[in-house]
């Protein structure tokens, strides 16, 4: 099966029903995308398929074939995506484990909605759990990146 991840083509020999998450992590070896719940409840595994955020733990790899897959490593080559800069400026991460998924959800939101309202941020982000409780900084970082963009 052919996958395009962050612009790079990968030919992988995996079952069609294998979740995209485990192909990305264990087969391709990109570990920025995280496993949190396995049932699309926590958002830690969020990646983009043609720009749309999906939970890769609950997406069969066959559904991703032929689409542009973007992971956190593909947000920018050097950490300079507006969301990454805003995350650093607001010092968002604590343990950081959920933040790949948080940033992927946030980046998708900003790509669609330039200057999101509080309610729009809540709506886009409430599928992503953070147990360290960084929600207010995430919100501030998105608002800042939105205003800057």
């Amino acid at each position, binding site marked *: 099966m052919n996958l395009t991840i962050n612009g790079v083509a990968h030919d992988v020999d995996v*079952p069609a029903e*294998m*979740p995209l998450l*485990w192909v990305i*992590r*264990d*087969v391709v*070896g*990109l*570990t*920025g*995308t*995280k*496993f*949190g*719940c*396995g*049932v699309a*409840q*926590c958002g*830690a595994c969020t990646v983009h398929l043609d720009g749309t955020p999906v939970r890769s733990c609950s997406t069969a790899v066959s559904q991703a074939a032929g689409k542009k897959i973007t*992971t*956190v*490593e593909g*947000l920018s080559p050097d*950490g300079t995506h507006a969301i*990454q800069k805003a*995350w*650093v400026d607001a*010092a*968002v*991460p*604590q*343990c*950081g*484990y*959920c*933040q*790949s998924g948080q*940033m992927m959800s946030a980046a998708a939101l900003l790509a669609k909605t330039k200057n999101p309202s509080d309610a729009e*941020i*809540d*709506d886009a*982000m*409430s*599928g*992503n*759990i*953070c*147990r*360290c*409780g*960084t*929600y*207010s*900084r*995430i*919100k501030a970082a998105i608002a800042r990146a939105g205003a800057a963009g």
Partner: protein
Amino acid sequence: MRRELFLRTSAAFGAGLALGACTPHPAQVPDLQPSPEPSVTFSPNAWVHVRTDGSVAVIINKSEMGQGVYTGLPMLVAEELDVPFDRIRVQFAPAEDQYADPVFKDITTGGSTSMADMYLILRGAGAAARAMLVAAAAKKWNVDPSKLQTKDGAVIDESSNRSATYAELAVAASTQTPPKTVKLKDASRFWLIGTSPKRLDIDGKVRGKTVYGIDVVVPGMVYANVFKAPTFGGTVASLDDAAARQVRGVSDVVKISSGVAVVASNTWAAMTGRDALKVTWKNDGPAAHVNTATMFTDAEKAARASTAAIAPGGRGDVDRASGKAIGAVYRGPFLAHAAMEPMNATADVRADAVEVWAPTQVQTRSRDVAMKITGFPAGKVTIHTTFLGGGFGRRLEPDYVADAVEISKAVKKPVKVTWLREDDIKNDFYRPLSVNVLNAKLDPSGHVTAWEHRVGSQSIIKRWAPPLFQKGLDSTSIEGSTPPFYSFASSRTTFTDFEPGVPVGFMRAPGANWNTFVTESFIDELAHAAGKDPLAFRLTLIDPRAPRVRAVLQLAAQRAGWGHPETPGASQGLALCMWGGSIGALVAEVSVKGKDIAVHRAVIAADCGVVVHPDIVDAQLSGAINYGIAMAMTAKITFTDGKVDQNNFYDYTVLRMKDAPKIQTVVVKSSEKPTGIGELGTPLIAPAIGNAIFKATGKRVRSLPFSDALA
């Protein structure tokens, strides 16, 4: 967590600093992780490596699980060494006894103690390195070392306008004799402590490059998942693994002490193989048939038992006190930690040694587990600490390390074991269920003449640190009960251990995360019974010898605007506590519509002594409040016939962004020694919410979660 341990910490702080606390170390040692460029290192002690490339490696003996030790602890070295913070490189200490925490006596991260325990040791390590670099420069220039200054990673001789960088001096410094004592900087000269430099772990975390335990890859590694017994202590009665072995990628099925492990070429194949196992279980552990309702009944019996252990520190005669009697019973459920990174570990058991990579809060215990399973001596066990995707006390248990070591030993390959979220929820060391019986007496003027807090709960310490379980008393289980800063005319705290066989462990602000809900709710009950405002009632009750507590309470009330909620239509509730030597007070603004509770705003004031990194303190206070909201609003672990009823985030629900309040933090400026900050917010929020609910509805909630209480 550790009242008596904390007292021992306090004793470690003296006027001067003896470097006996820093283990003598060879002057030149190999780097744990050599710098990319060829570089000699000068190591005046176990904690600091000054490299000839201009960087300084700081070895930290604490796990980074979000609380900021990866940044805050190296700041202590950089401050005393006068080296720019961006030249600091951080390494996690190996599981060697020389890196033991001075209070725990081993390598452990917990109880909000990292900064308090390491504050003087790491400053001393930096100061010792500085002294040797200065001595090397003095020798080179043939001048009196006391005339030399240090700044920006260089020694400066102002009288002759000479300077030499640490990189240039490192080799010469390594021949100097390490000083026996050093003088630490006066706080007035701090240039780094008290500022908020960029966190050293943040770039990796925003780029997906940080290596957590679950991300470890070892050449030749296989992947495993463990099917665990549905009841605690259950064992395999029969196993049919034929279908599992047919799953593509599955290479092995092995029985280990915690269940049946499926080994495969990737995590998903291992999990799929596990689903294909046919196992019948012998559910014959001590908790094989427990039920929640029965356990609440038993815990209440324990709380009321006449044989209860009486905690030291009580005063007066509670039984003979006069006044109007007021009593209440509070009930708290088991809770799961639910750290975002599911439990995992990687082990490589070879013929003559074992290596472990683990997201752990207990490196020494992890080493000991690996020694026990393999029979290897300590010198043959290497523990690599990874970043932790949350800890909250769950990773004070090395059970998942045991899984990895047992499986690797069986299959003779490096193995990474990864638990499902369901395994994590159903195989936790839970926050214990607790029933508390409260009795108080109020005299006609509203003075508290008697206060009794009777705790019936499961001891954690009797398993985790048995020597500390003395005369039936677990001091961690009563943490937060009968606050010492209230001047009750008489008081008594009792504890009775009741043992249903459910594994219990430490969870963020253990003991206090429940007992503070009880005490601060009951104080509120007494205030209302006395016809007093809850703030005024507390201010009257606070011991005059606790001015810092009074100041924090007043600060929170003032910043929040006590009596004048910012949120239209909301009600305010108040709570006060001490944790990890720090003091916190919180005002919550809450509204209740039917059974829906909304927490709009939380204002917290804290006094944690010297603030090393203000932005991390703000982050910890806020995060701990949000963690406490999750604990209080909907979370509970319940049992039906020995089995945990909850599975995953759909039925063990936690806080999400849309329900998170606006949080404001204010921290007292202080020159007292630094104390803990990672847990302080957690015990405060539930009672503040409960007291606000009472203000809004007149209903006193005495059991959690709130969602059940108002249902």
